[in-house]
């Protein structure tokens, strides 16, 4: 749906400093552009829960990180997400690939459980499921940053 350069441009404009990620096949296509960015540092983790904790440390240290993972990794992230966002009140922001969400016929349980999962955490989110909705990423990030609250952007994945 987006090129890596489009995403990098958006993240750079927002003043972000670190992308803490474990990619899926959609987000993974952005690796070259993310790695080439002079403003963004790409931090690779081994399991998605780690991403929230690294981002927490970065935020505490004055950096401006974004977590970038797939929705299956969101499911894995529970305890670290809980700790960083709800124990310590850190307003972390994440871009999460919503696997199979663009395929109405998909029986993928990852598609079905993503939004209920975010709702159960009480995490506000926006869905970007069309190329023309990309500006919503920046708008939503700014609204979360200004309000000092966490947020998630779901990136539609599947058929386009």
């Amino acid at each position, binding site marked *: 749906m987006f090129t890596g350069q489009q995403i990098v441009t958006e993240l750079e404009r927002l003043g972000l400093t*670190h992308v*803490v990620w474990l990619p899926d096949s959609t987000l993974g296509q952005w690796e070259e552009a993310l790695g080439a960015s002079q403003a963004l*540092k790409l*931090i*690779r*983790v*081994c*399991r998605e*829960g*780690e991403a*929230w*904790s*690294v*981002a*927490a*440390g*970065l*935020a*505490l*240290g*004055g*950096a401006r*990180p974004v977590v970038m993972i797939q929705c299956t990794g969101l499911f894995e992230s529970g*305890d*670290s997400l*809980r*700790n*960083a966002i709800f*124990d*310590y*009140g*850190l307003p972390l922001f994440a871009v999460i690939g919503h696997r199979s969400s663009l395929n109405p016929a998909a029986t993928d349980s990852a598609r079905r459980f993503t939004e209920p999962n975010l709702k159960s955490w009480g995490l506000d989110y926006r869905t970007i499921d069309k190329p023309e909705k990309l500006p919503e990423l920046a708008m939503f990030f700014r609204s979360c940053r200004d309000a000092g609250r966490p947020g998630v952007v779901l990136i539609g994945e599947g058929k386009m």
Partner: protein
Amino acid sequence: MSMSLVESLKVLHAVRTPGQVVIPTMGSAREWMTLGTHPLDFIYAPSAMGQAPLVGLGVALAQPERQVIVTNGDGCTLMNLGCLVTITAAAPRNLVLIVCDNSVYEVTGQQLTAAAEPARPGAPAVDYCAIARGCGFREVFAYERLEAWQAEVGRVLSVSGPTFVLLSVAPVPGGAVPKSPAPAPQRAIEFSRALQSAPLTEAFN
């Protein structure tokens, strides 16, 4: 052979400089709090078990001129061995990861970890230092005796990391889950402010 957890932490406490960050968790957090308070202490309690080294990694990357010391448990380490790979991929020269190995889950009543020799019929205890080396830690140290740790702590903290330190410690009888010394969100704000205003670590200036 093992040393007292409290005594081993006292060794670290005695040499800690004003600009260094210390992030203790689980048993080491409980005991570190008894040694005093410091604005650059981030007592990682409440915790997400296994995540303290990653929080430390984030701080170390955000503040590369400041040394960050994480004291972790062996049970915590086992819960997230992948963090060793994540740390060495990011290669922070200012991160020191100390694992206090007592071979048990102390705060839940001292049940054996799966890495402890008695829990592994026919297999030796897990070699954390070998794992750390295999993951690419630049410096790996191990101490079973307090005197040796005391003699070398200065050198351990002066080398360029990422650094891995294994301290063999005895379980603390009745050692309880550490309690947050103040509301956690308030501590996060105060720690963040301190991080961004405190003098840098002397060794990394």
